[in-house]
């Protein structure tokens, strides 16, 4: 079985987001970038399945600018066998990403495609489901447990009401929740070894997909500032304020 894992380069989740003064977006210059956190879970799961002898190859793919190569390289350092980078400029909407991934899937013919359930930059939560629709494959979103049984996958999904279990045929798309596993850190020797693993580079234009934007971003603003709060001196004052001023208890 072959597993394709899609990884995205995003602003690190510990970085304080700053909006550009001209409201054209958020500041990304000189900001620490990392792999989208649930994409780390996706890679980890694929590598674990390979280590358990149930997969033969793990291929990491990223769509983004040249520097997204670092994100692919990191996936290689934790166990992916080879990488693919589809180079794009600027914002690529999930619909376009899923069309590009569809082309990669048609070429690579994986049995499973894993990715994070959501990217923490645009928070869209669309790509996996869209890819699954384009391929007419089953989808298992928000996966917190994956079991391979007789060529099928039994996946436990995190839903608002609790947990849901579904069984899907292969080939399939799985989008991973943070609870799926504990991503490992890359060891120094593995980071060195990853430098020798191949990364194929393609341009989005080579894949014959229209990735022009369908959504115009008019402006990006800071969230509404909270009114300055007050410090209360005692618990009784706090309770009085909550009861009589804020009227929430």
């Amino acid at each position, binding site marked *: 079985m072959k597993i394709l894992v899609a990884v995205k380069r995003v602003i690190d*989740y510990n970085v304080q987001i700053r909006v550009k003064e001209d409201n054209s977006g958020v500041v990304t210059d000189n900001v620490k970038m990392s792999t989208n956190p649930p994409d780390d879970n996706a890679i980890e799961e694929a590598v674990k399945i390979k280590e358990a002898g149930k997969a033969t190859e793990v291929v990491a793919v990223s769509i983004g600018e040249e520097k997204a190569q670092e994100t692919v390289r990191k996936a290689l350092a934790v166990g992916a066998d080879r990488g693919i980078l589809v180079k794009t400029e600027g914002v690529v909407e999930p619909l376009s990403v899923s069309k590009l991934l569809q082309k990669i899937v048609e070429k690579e013919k994986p049995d499973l495609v894993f990715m994070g359930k959501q990217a923490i930059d645009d928070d869209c939560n669309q790509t996996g489901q869209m890819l699954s629709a384009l391929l007419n494959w089953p989808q298992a979103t928000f996966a917190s447990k994956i079991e391979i049984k007789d060529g099928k996958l039994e996946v436990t999904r995190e839903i608002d009401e609790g947990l849901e279990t579904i069984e899907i045929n292969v080939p399939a798309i799985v989008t991973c929740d943070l609870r799926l596993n504990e991503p490992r850190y890359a060891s120094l020797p593995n980071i060195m070894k990853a430098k020798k693993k191949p990364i194929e580079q393609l341009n989005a234009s080579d894949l014959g997909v229209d990735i022009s934007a369908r959504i115009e971003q008019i402006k*990006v603003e800071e969230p509404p500032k909270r009114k300055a709060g007050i410090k209360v001196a005692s618990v009784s004052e706090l309770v009085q304020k909550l009861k009589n001023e804020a009227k929430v208890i």
Partner: protein
Amino acid sequence: MSVLLIAEHNNKELKPFTLNAATAASQIDNDVHAVIIGHKCEEAAKALSKLEFVKKVIQVEADYYENFVAENFAPVIVKLADNYSHIISSANTFGKNLMPRIAAALDTSQISDITKVIAPDTFLRPIYAGNAFATVKSKDVKKCITIRPTSFDPCESSGGSATIDKAEASEEFSKTKFVKREEVKSDRPELGTARVVVSGGRGMQSGDNFKLITSLADKLNAAIGASRAAVDAGYISNDHQVGQTGKVVVPDLYIAVGISGAIQHLAGMKESKVIVAINKDGEAPIFSVADYGLEADLFEAVPQFLEELNKLNTIQK
């Protein structure tokens, strides 16, 4: 053209967020139609027909619709889409799972999790876990939109008198099978929708001390939250985690106890209407978002809090 609202239900009743989504739909266009896909969902369809704003209900029945598998639902909506300019659902796990499948089939770039309708083609949505807000305009002919339920008031559940039409089911998608659903049975409100949330952080010092949080939550009929630090320290299970990598909550009252206020936690709760922080470190960043800050040792303050609450004649539920 009209707006098509996708109803969320359990075949007996509507799920509450359908009412919030109906309000959002009505802000895009007056002519709101609602589709309900299920198995023996007559009662829920009737409830849908009574909603304020809903002008017409389309009911689609098949036994394989009983468990809301997105691969089965999407083709039904795609088939109905010709008559509509917008397709709307909630941005909860139901809508998140379903809508992108519809959007891809319609070759539409979906707009997720909107918090405001600015114009029928222009919306406000949070990005970077609410650390920034983007105003976006869709250039697609058909628009697929998911709405953040807590940003729209629920509509009235009575007053409407929509007709209920039946539409044909689509073919079953046989490659995905529902196995089971384990709903978390709790007397407590759900973290994502609770009116009050009481959260504990690393300052709790142990899982045992979370009893204090539980008592306070009991008293206020609140859901229990936690910071990532408290989860990582093993004080409480991770389904309680509030923050960028956990749940985003927007309650009327959020009480942060022994939480310093790391960026990733603030991202998950700073849109709450009223925020209370109890922390012995007066410099903790949580105080910068708190409406009411109490600089105190939580092990003294929380028991006092309980005592003060006991003195009140009534507590809102």
